[in-house]
């Protein structure tokens, strides 16, 4: 406990470094997954190869990928960029499938109605399909966010600074407080980011609340009858 209090500035620094590694990866994964998923849904022949292919990427263990990437893209093993790219790949592996399923779940009735009202292809995608797929997309991003935040720590064994450094330092110098602080901060960080995502979802998709309330009302009416 005293160790934690004595080292608050360092913990804060590492927390920021941790965020700087994980958040870009989550954003990159999300932004790239939408066009990929859209393409995979559009060209049906490509759907399974794209989904299985990205799924297979997830089977690649993280530490070996951190080491393999420099050989492929020319970064150094201790380069933060290397970690961000590796995490983006993992995020993408998870996100493409959820995005494809989310977009696919928008029914054809809705799509044809939108076309009938006069939406263009692009307009329909951004104003009808994307918002309707929103809740499922949010669920996907939440998983990617939490797992990225916990995955970043592994890169500490290669010497990249993050909350994971608290584990490697703590282990090397036999300080349990350091490791406990690292675990707590990682979990807290994951929870806060998750909460922010949920809040952002509520603000961007206010109709979600009313939809949730309706079945409850209907149910109570049934009970009353």
């Amino acid at each position, binding site marked *: 406990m005293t160790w934690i209090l004595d080292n608050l500035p360092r913990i804060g620094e590492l927390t920021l470094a941790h965020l700087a590694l994980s958040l870009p990866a989550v954003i990159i994964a999300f932004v790239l997954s939408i066009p990929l998923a859209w393409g995979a849904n559009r060209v049906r022949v490509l759907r399974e190869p794209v989904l299985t292919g990205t799924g*297979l990427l*997830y*089977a*690649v*263990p*993280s*530490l*070996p*990928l951190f*080491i*393999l990437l*420099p*050989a*492929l893209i020319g970064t150094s*093993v201790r380069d933060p960029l290397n970690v961000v790219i590796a995490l983006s790949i993992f995020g993408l592996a*998870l996100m493409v499938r*959820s995005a494809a*399923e989310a977009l696919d779940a928008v029914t054809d009735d809705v799509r044809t109605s939108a076309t009938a009202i006069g939406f263009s292809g692009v307009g329909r995608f951004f104003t009808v399909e994307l918002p309707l797929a929103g809740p*499922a997309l949010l*669920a*996907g991003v*939440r*998983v990617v966010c*939490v*797992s990225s*935040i*916990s995955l970043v*720590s*592994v890169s*500490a*064994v*290669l010497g990249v600074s993050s*909350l*994971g450094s*608290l*584990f*490697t330092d*703590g*282990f090397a110098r*036999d300080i*349990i407080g350091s*490791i*406990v602080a*690292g*675990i707590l901060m*990682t*979990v807290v960080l*994951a*929870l806060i980011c998750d909460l922010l995502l949920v809040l952002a979802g509520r603000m961007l998709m206010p109709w979600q609340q009313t939809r949730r309330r309706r079945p409850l009302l209907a149910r109570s009416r049934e009970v009353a009858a």
Partner: protein
Amino acid sequence: MSNILEALNWLLTADAWTGPGGLWVRSLEHLAYTLIALGISAVIALPLGLAIGHTRKGRGIAIVATGAARALPTLGLLTLVALVTGIGLTAPMVALVVLAAPSVLAGAYAGVESVNQATVDAARAQGMNGWQVLTRVEIPLGLPLILSGLRLAALQIIATATLAAYVGAGGLGRQLFLGLQTYDYSVMLGASLVVILLAILVDTAFGLTQRLLRRVPGLAGPGKAPSTGTRSRRVRANMTAN
């Protein structure tokens, strides 16, 4: 690219593979860790998950527990247990089981829940008791998702078993960290490639098993019957989301 060639070159030398610290021994160690950790996780989490799915009780707790376990950094858990229990196999095993058990648990309850309620009711109407419903209906029909849980757990274990060497145990992580400490990138990369290969092999083996099992009559895969298909897809989505 020249780095990859060098690593492949190293992988093609006999010295890299033979001997007590060679890649063969380390690969077998890695697989042994994986099997043991997967076995322990299954013994703990399968009965629990099946019970949750069958009784529909405790689902909320299971979801929170799996979510919390996802946020838990494995390296932190590993080093923490290692400081307490000392260098050896205990710390990696604890960390691996804590990491893998939630996936097995989620697969088990999602699998049982994915079984069409009408089928379960029909089995009960035939006079089956709770145990018979579970073993003859819910487990065989929920098998695809139960196996998916085990598959995910196995992958997580293989990936993380690489870290076991960090706290003094064996496995393929040994070569990897050896390369890291001696700045020998080709050894590091070579060992990484072997870990990746191992993970993909195990994943493919699980995939093939799942595909084969789907052909056995009575073990319905998801999507065979349209009603269970959409349901199990939803349950599977839940499984990864939680």
